């Protein structure tokens, strides 16, 4: 979609391919992973869609043992907030993590292709 804005579908369709889309302001180049009509920084109404690096680090997380509807059969798993390039953040989840000790703040993660809802990440073991 366009209209110089970023819609829900723009994010979701890319996610399935392991791609993280963000808005990019055509005036000040501010970027963010969000559903957006005006730039958060300068208020410009012309936003482009850009792809950003799908590798980042976990800045906080939880282990979901009770889940909402689409995830009932996935528990337990980690729900995470990820910091990507230039301090841009997104959310996602890592399957098959059952304990807080299996994940650490600062863990490097990468978005992977998936038919499941949301952004599915995996740990990068270095």
């Amino acid at each position: 979609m366009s209209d110089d804005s970023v819609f829900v579908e723009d994010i979701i369709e890319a996610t399935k391919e392991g791609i993280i889309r963000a808005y990019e302001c055509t005036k000040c180049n501010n970027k963010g992973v969000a559903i957006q009509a005006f730039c958060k920084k300068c208020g410009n109404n012309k936003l482009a869609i850009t792809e950003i690096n799908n590798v980042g680090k976990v800045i906080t997380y939880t282990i979901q043992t009770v889940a909402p509807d689409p995830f009932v059969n996935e528990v337990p798993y980690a729900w995470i907030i990820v910091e990507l390039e230039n301090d841009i953040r997104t959310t996602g989840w890592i399957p098959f993590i059952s304990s807080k000790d299996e994940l650490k703040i600062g863990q490097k993660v990468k978005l992977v292709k998936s038919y499941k809802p949301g952004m599915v990440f995996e740990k990068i073991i270095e």
Partner: protein
Amino acid sequence: MENMNKVFLLSAAGTKYGKANLTARDLSMLASKRAIENAGINPQNIQAAFVANAFGMAEKQGHLGPLLMSSLGIPHVPSSTIEAACCSGGSAFREAYINVASGFYDVMLVVGTEKISHLDTLTATTYFSYGGDYCFEGNSGASFPGLYATMARSHMNEYGTTEEELAAVAVKNHDNGVLNDKAHLQKKITIDEVLKSPIVADPLKLYDSCPFSDGAAAAIIASEDFMNKNNLQKRVSIKGSGRSGGEGSLHTRKNINSLESTVRASREALKQAGINIKKIDFAEVHDCFTIAEIIAMEDIGIFEKGEASKAALEGRTAINGEIPINPSGGLKSKGHPVGATGVGQIVEVYEQLTESSTQRQVKNANIGLTHNVGATGGSCAVHIFERE
């Protein structure tokens, strides 16, 4: 805000919170009837109403306002439903306050109501996840407790907050709830019981979390002119009203362990009231999870950032402590009937300021504050009340 007229809280009343056999419509009628009777006015005096409700569709009933007005015998009175997730009640009260303070109406009814106990846990968990950013949160695996759990871990990582300190908040609020015959969970608990309760979303456990409750609460506010003309006793006035929005998603905000909307709304309310936070004698804050009470106290300014974690453990926020927090039992023990919650907080403040809180009465309660949050801070309403 300089041109606002003085507004009085004429009465406030609520139903018992918990599992109700009544519908949200019934509950709103019951709370409204009590508030009108306690106010000593006739329903015909009410000029407009706001109904706070989040999950009406779960009962196959929207458009609650006209049904309620008809039940009160005033079908001509205009009413609208206000939905701001868990902040529906505080938001509805704020809009009513603006209507009366601006001089447009003299008397308004605000009622919050919710019925959710008929839903199974999965359905209720799913409904609650709709209050956040569904694209990035509920539909990306986060339950509502999961969102607050990530805030808790961020707070623990930055300030060293412990699970025992979180548990102490639950213990304190249950201690208060035992003294409140309208509370949902009237049961004392121990720190050990909280720590051993089932994990819902690590580090939050079942006993860190508020229950799914049914219930309703109503308040009637009036102008000074109406109070004088009808020789009504002025007992409680609204001293400050603050309201703010905040980033609707957790990931797009700079700080995950603070709610900017709480900071802004509380500063706005304090500024209008013309007082420092130290003048507050007690507060009802939005403790949907134990971590939420800690973050709220810091964002409102009751404690410095990172300093609120130990407050409950040290007894500083108990009813007889230096600053009583959630004397009603809070959302944690009194319960959380979503749309009713913000109005229910005002019921507690009204009872405290009119010395009718019996066993949980806060000594020398002259100024009370309410703090109501929608989801993870997308909405916040703060009100300050003073005994006349």
